[in-house]
């Protein structure tokens, strides 16, 4: 082809034609891009279920994939696609909700946000019609308080596949060293007893807290438990009413402030600067309990699988939480992983079969890898975390597992508000204001109450 020919050929396409072609090309490309990536399975073909999790790391997702292969061997007509392990730099809920809005969500997902909150926004499918016929998922197979976190407007929008229950961890050696009875039966039954015991251990050196007995409630996630221990609640799901500033809750926080004043110099800044009094590592700071600088603290069952606890050089034990002046019985709390089916999922039945399997069978493999406590009552109670067996022996591990399963049975409702995350942040704000003494318990809780009820009413109004 000569240059002249090329030139003639080029001139034959005028600008208008070129732009028209460009337009058609662009339109075709757009339509192709907007089309769905997956196609419905034909007869005899496997249905591919897509499955997401907000994160958890490579090992966790590898474990989920292994469970999926096991599931596929029992369900030849269903394949579970490789788990979408988080959403990269974008926030998981942002991506999930955008995909739901676009009509292209995953078929099933793990959630770290309360299903009640997502259901109130129309993001999840109710599972009630599917649950009764399932092998593991029927409502009666879950502790009621735990399943409550999945319920909104009388329907169930998720399955609490695991729920780490909490308890009072205490260092037996520190007790024995001071000649204090260390058996579970001897552990304080009331807040007053706990406070007296705590004082035995607390020791300051100047402005540095060297050793703490028990740090009164300062973790926001545990606040509903302390409220229930004092005979109250923070949120009444049945009446869709926050009760944050109810008198027993004000009394509960005044009790904590008084404790802080008497035992911890009334200075929370000094306390937090002196160490990490939580149950997990914070910015490189190990929990004080691990360093034997704290005699007692409340944390959750998954810690028993961590080497720092399972292989600790000292002995520890668990006790039930003491009851407040306004309470009548001990309760526990829980921290779940939920499974759910987003609205607009394409393969609902197959996705539910996968979630049902995960609830009863898959969760056992999950537990072997990461000791999140299975919540389903059909799961055998003699599952033991390997690290704990190795570190503390079979008998101890069995005893601790029974303890945590019992705790789950006596859990108080939590995570059940349509504005869960908002309320958690408002409560954290109130709690910090109280502990740092920039507000009184009454005023801080009243402000949190107003904000939470306002946000709740707004969401419920939009939903109606």
């Amino acid at each position: 082809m000569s240059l002249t020919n090329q030139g003639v050929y080029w001139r034959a396409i005028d600008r208008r034609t070129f732009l028209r072609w460009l337009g058609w090309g662009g339109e075709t490309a757009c339509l192709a891009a907007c089309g769905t990536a997956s196609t419905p399975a034909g007869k005899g073909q496997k249905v591919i279920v897509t499955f997401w999790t907000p994160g958890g790391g490579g090992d966790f997702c590898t474990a989920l994939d292994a469970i999926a292969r096991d599931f596929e061997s029992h369900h030849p007509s269903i394949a579970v696609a490789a788990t979408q392990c988080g959403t990269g730099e974008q926030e998981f809920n942002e991506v999930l909700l955008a995909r739901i809005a676009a009509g292209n969500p995953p078929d099933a997902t793990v959630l770290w946000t309360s299903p009640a909150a997502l259901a109130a926004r129309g993001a999840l499918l109710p599972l009630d019609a599917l649950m009764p016929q399932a092998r593991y998922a029927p409502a009666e197979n879950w502790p009621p308080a735990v399943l409550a976190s999945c319920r909104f407007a009388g329907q169930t929008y998720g399955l609490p596949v695991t729920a780490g229950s909490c308890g009072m961890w205490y260092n037996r050696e520190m007790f024995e060293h001071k000649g204090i009875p260390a058996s579970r039966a001897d552990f304080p039954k009331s807040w007053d007893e706990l406070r007296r015991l705590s004082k035995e251990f607390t020791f300051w050196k100047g402005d540095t807290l060297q050793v703490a007995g028990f740090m009164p409630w300062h973790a926001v996630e545990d606040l509903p438990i302390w409220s229930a221990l004092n005979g109250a609640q923070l949120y009444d799901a049945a009446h869709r009413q926050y009760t944050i500033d109810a008198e027993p809750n004000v009394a509960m926080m005044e009790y904590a402030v008084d404790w802080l004043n008497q035992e911890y110099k009334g200075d929370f800044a000094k306390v937090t600067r002196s160490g990490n009094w939580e149950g997990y590592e914070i910015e490189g700071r190990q929990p004080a309990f691990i360093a034997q600088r704290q005699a007692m603290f409340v944390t959750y069952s998954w810690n028993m699988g961590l080497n720092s606890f399972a292989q600790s050089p000292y002995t520890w034990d668990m006790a039930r939480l003491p009851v407040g002046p306004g309470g009548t019985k001990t309760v526990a709390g829980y921290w779940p992983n939920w499974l759910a089916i987003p609205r607009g999922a394409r393969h609902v039945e197959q996705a539910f079969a996968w979630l049902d399997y995960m609830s009863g069978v898959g969760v056992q493999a999950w537990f072997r890898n990461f000791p999140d406590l299975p919540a389903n009552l059909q799961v055998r109670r003699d599952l033991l975390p390997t690290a704990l067996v190795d570190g503390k022996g079979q008998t101890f591990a069995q005893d601790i597992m029974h303890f945590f399963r019992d705790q789950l049975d006596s859990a108080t409702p939590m995570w059940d508000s349509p504005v869960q995350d908002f309320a958690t942040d408002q409560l954290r704000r109130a709690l910090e204001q109280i502990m740092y003494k920039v507000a009184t318990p009454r005023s801080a809780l009243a402000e949190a109450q107003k904000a939470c009820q306002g946000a709740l009413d707004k969401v419920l109004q939009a939903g109606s």
Partner: protein
Amino acid sequence: MAATRAQQARRGGTRRRTARAGLLFVLPWLLSLLLFTAYPVLTTLYLSFTDYNIVQPPRWIGLQNYRTMFTADPAFWTSVGNSAYYALLAVPLGLAGALGLALLLNTRAPGMGVYRTLIALPVLVPPVASTIVFIAMFDPDNGLINALLQQVGLPTVGWLTDPTWAKPALILLSLWGLGASALIFLAGLQEIPQALLDAAAIDGAGPWQRFRHVTLPLLTPVILFNLVMGVISSFHIFTQALVVGGTTGKPLESTLMFMVHIYRTAFRYFAMGHAAALAVVLFLAVLVVTLVIFQSAPLWVYYEGNRGSHR
């Protein structure tokens, strides 16, 4: 007459063709502006008047989001206060620090190229990584900064664990990235004619007088640029505040910046309408502050060839 008309028509046709060709050339940029800037801005404005949670369609609620923001959002005024505190301290400190660095980099010391590269390098470090390094440095027990304070006999502080010190710590952290401003100042310094500085020296001006009466006035356009960019970026501080204080601005909401409040309102509370209203308010605030700075520019910015603005 007819020939003239034909000529005019030809010229008109040429102009139209030229205009069309020009439009075609700028079309990619125009489309990008419309799609990725104008559309989101207008959509944000619209969403600020709605109740919107991504999944359900937006519902028009008029000014309710703005009313809630000013009267029933406890974190709004806290985040406004935090952002203002940060901007008021971080911007002047950053400008002074960057100018000081630029003056040092403008000397004829040996190995200056290496120093300039070293000063610019922190800009390349991802903000999350540098913030994590600073968190370790600010650690009250084992951090480098408290260790240095102890070495010189000064009292140590809680830094990021103490509500009083968390914001100052964030401001110190912001100085890590002043290499970019320093390089802009350096470019400005190198534009200053040596003859002016020499003339001032011959007239008996010392180093401080040369800086005060020659360098600084000639540098004011660069100061204006860095000031505007600094104010805008200080209002937009997000990553560092989020890594340090999470979505709650711990401790005691002392690191809850306005952008973090917008983010958590949108993606933690799913209140997109409310978050859009917050974004509109931020946009207006930055716009007003920027306009005030530009309005004040004739009073203190010296432009060569514009004698009226020289004070």
